[in-house]
């Protein structure tokens, strides 16, 4: 029984570590910021989850398992927030290889802010009905 649990734990750890390596590889090989964010933040989520499962199996004891669960939950809650903030700024600052885009449906409509002041709702420009996308 314990031998089986150990094998499962090692398999999870190995898969998670391999995903961390692919995250690094993608970070170096991908062409622009947005693609690198896929590489950086995505195998991370799955990789970290697998590593946490492996560690929870190895460190038996409920207190440890709960704490690892909490780590995984925080990771899942916070990763999209930072990913979204960074990717939006990356798009606005033209860190996109336009020649690699198969489809770009954002070009033309979307953010037609007169002046972009910041990220808070209070920073948004006053309503301009003539600037609505599709309107």
């Amino acid at each position, binding site marked *: 029984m314990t031998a089986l649990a150990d094998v499962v734990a090692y398999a999870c750890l190995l898969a998670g570590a391999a995903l961390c390596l692919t995250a690094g590889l993608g970070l170096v090989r991908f062409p622009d910021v947005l*693609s690198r964010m*896929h590489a950086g933040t995505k195998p991370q989520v799955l990789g970290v989850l697998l590593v946490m499962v492996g560690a929870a199996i190895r460190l038996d004891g409920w207190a440890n398992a709960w704490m690892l669960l*909490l780590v995984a939950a925080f990771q899942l809650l916070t990763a999209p927030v930072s990913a979204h903030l960074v990717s939006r700024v990356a798009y606005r600052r033209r860190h*996109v290889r336009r020649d690699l885009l198969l489809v770009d449906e954002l070009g033309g409509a979307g953010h037609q802010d007169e002046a972009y002041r910041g990220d808070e709702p209070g920073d948004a420009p006053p309503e301009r009905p003539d600037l609505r996308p*599709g309107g």
Partner: protein
Amino acid sequence: MTVEPAATRLRHQVPLMAWLVLVWMLLWGSWSWANLLSGLLVALTVLTLLPLPHVIDGTRVRPVPLLVFLGHFVVDLFTSGAEVAWQALRPGGVDRTAIVRVQLRADSDLLLTMVAEATSLVPGSLVLDLDREHRVMTLHLLPVRDLEDVERKKAHVLVVERRLVRAFGSAADLAALDTHRGEGVPTP
């Protein structure tokens, strides 16, 4: 709404309170009355000092659709994780990406946030922007082979939204899923 203000406040605060106490207990790693009481105290302090806007209007949790969503989510996590990992490993490197807009149908802050989080967590799609007013989500897709593939991935986002609304949405949200069917993204 003719509900007693105190009752609505209680309905909004209790789940948050329970969540904060749960986190507190998990951090300590063991169950005891002292942990429960100190957790309640900390949660009360946090909620009084840092009040949150109400976002859970009209939501309910349906266990079976929630399990369906979670199951599909884990499967998606694995398949797309493998796909992105293969993009990083394969000899040619990445050649094609896409930026697309998807018209969502849910109309509640909480549901839209959940859809965006779920889409963002699944590898291969990244939320660039979410237009709350028009419910349009802008995505960056990483491994796309051709236009058909792009359409397939856009349709998949709507499927994820449908699963989430089934799990958490109110009756009105569920009805909105069907009335808005077939309505495409407003063309620029």
